[in-house]
């Protein structure tokens, strides 16, 4: 198997693959860094909604033909997780994969593993596909608590009732006047993937919508 482990020269010339992790760790700022979430005042009444920004993650967008068994296999080999079906997600200890479109999936992994995962994918995939590192472009907000679902109902026209949105389902839909990829992690916990430039708005919206239920910023949700 060793020969497939490193990309062939030819591959490199075709696609500019880039390890985006510094050799030495460098200071980072997450999309919500400026909001100083830790320091934000919390609602007076007893919290029934908690939310926080998960630290920086590796985000990879995979594109390819779901009906191509080589592609399916290749992804499974590389990730140890198979492509998920329409509106479905799967996760392992370090990875999650979410369906975004019939030919598009989002893989979230630890930030410093993004290149390793991309390389693994490129090593095991051939033909027409693409892998794009978008780690800097989005962030994950984890929303939990008894009233989390009501915050979502205020924010999106989607039906979040468990008969319609069971654990593991993932949808891209409206969030206020921006959008989010929303995944149900468990009965009361939801992960929202938000684009960096909208993060400030999304957080303020969320805080505002949650305030009446008693809202608390939580940084230990991961």
């Amino acid at each position: 198997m060793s020969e497939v482990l490193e990309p062939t020269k030819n591959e490199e010339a075709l696609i500019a693959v880039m390890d985006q992790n510094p050799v030495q760790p460098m200071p980072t700022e997450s999309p919500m860094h400026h909001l100083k979430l830790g320091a934000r005042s919390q609602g007076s009444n007893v919290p029934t909604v908690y939310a926080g920004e998960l630290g920086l993650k590796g985000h990879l967008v995979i594109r390819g033909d779901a009906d191509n068994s080589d592609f399916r296999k290749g992804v499974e080999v590389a990730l140890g997780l198979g492509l998920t079906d329409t509106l479905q997600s799967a996760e392992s200890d370090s990875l999650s994969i979410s369906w975004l479109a019939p030919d598009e999936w989002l893989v979230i992994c630890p930030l410093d593993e993004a290149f390793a995962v991309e390389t693994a994918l490129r090593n095991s995939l051939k033909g027409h596909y693409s892998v794009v590192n978008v780690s800097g472009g989005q962030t994950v907000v984890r929303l939990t608590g008894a009233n989390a679902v009501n915050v979502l109902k205020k924010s999106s026209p989607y039906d979040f009732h468990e008969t319609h949105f069971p654990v593991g389902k993932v949808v891209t839909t409206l969030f206020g006047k921006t959008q989010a990829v929303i995944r149900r992690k468990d009965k009361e916990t939801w992960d929202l993937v938000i684009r960096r430039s909208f993060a400030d708005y999304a957080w303020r919206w969320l805080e505002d919508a949650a305030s009446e239920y008693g809202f608390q910023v939580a940084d230990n949700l991961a």
Partner: protein
Amino acid sequence: MFYIYCPYCKEHREEEEFHAKGQAHIERPADPDSCTDKEWGEYLYFRKNPRGLHHEMWVHAVGCRKFFNVTRDTQTYEIKEVYKMGERPTITAQNQTAAKQA
């Protein structure tokens, strides 16, 4: 507000997630350079604008970003059929009227 079935997400979504993209099945002329101004103008601007069944294109903009076709009654706003790019409608004004006469 419409409730539109996305054939790629395989469920109904609110109209707010979509953009209407106008008449469906308009094909770009194979050889534009050989088109007359008239032909090109019709491709650019002239549209079917029926009162009744209309085949139109929508995109699931806040969602899977896929374009698809919708057959909708422009009077009652009923959606009769949704089908993917490259597919043909099974419900048309012609076969509807035919069905009525039958």
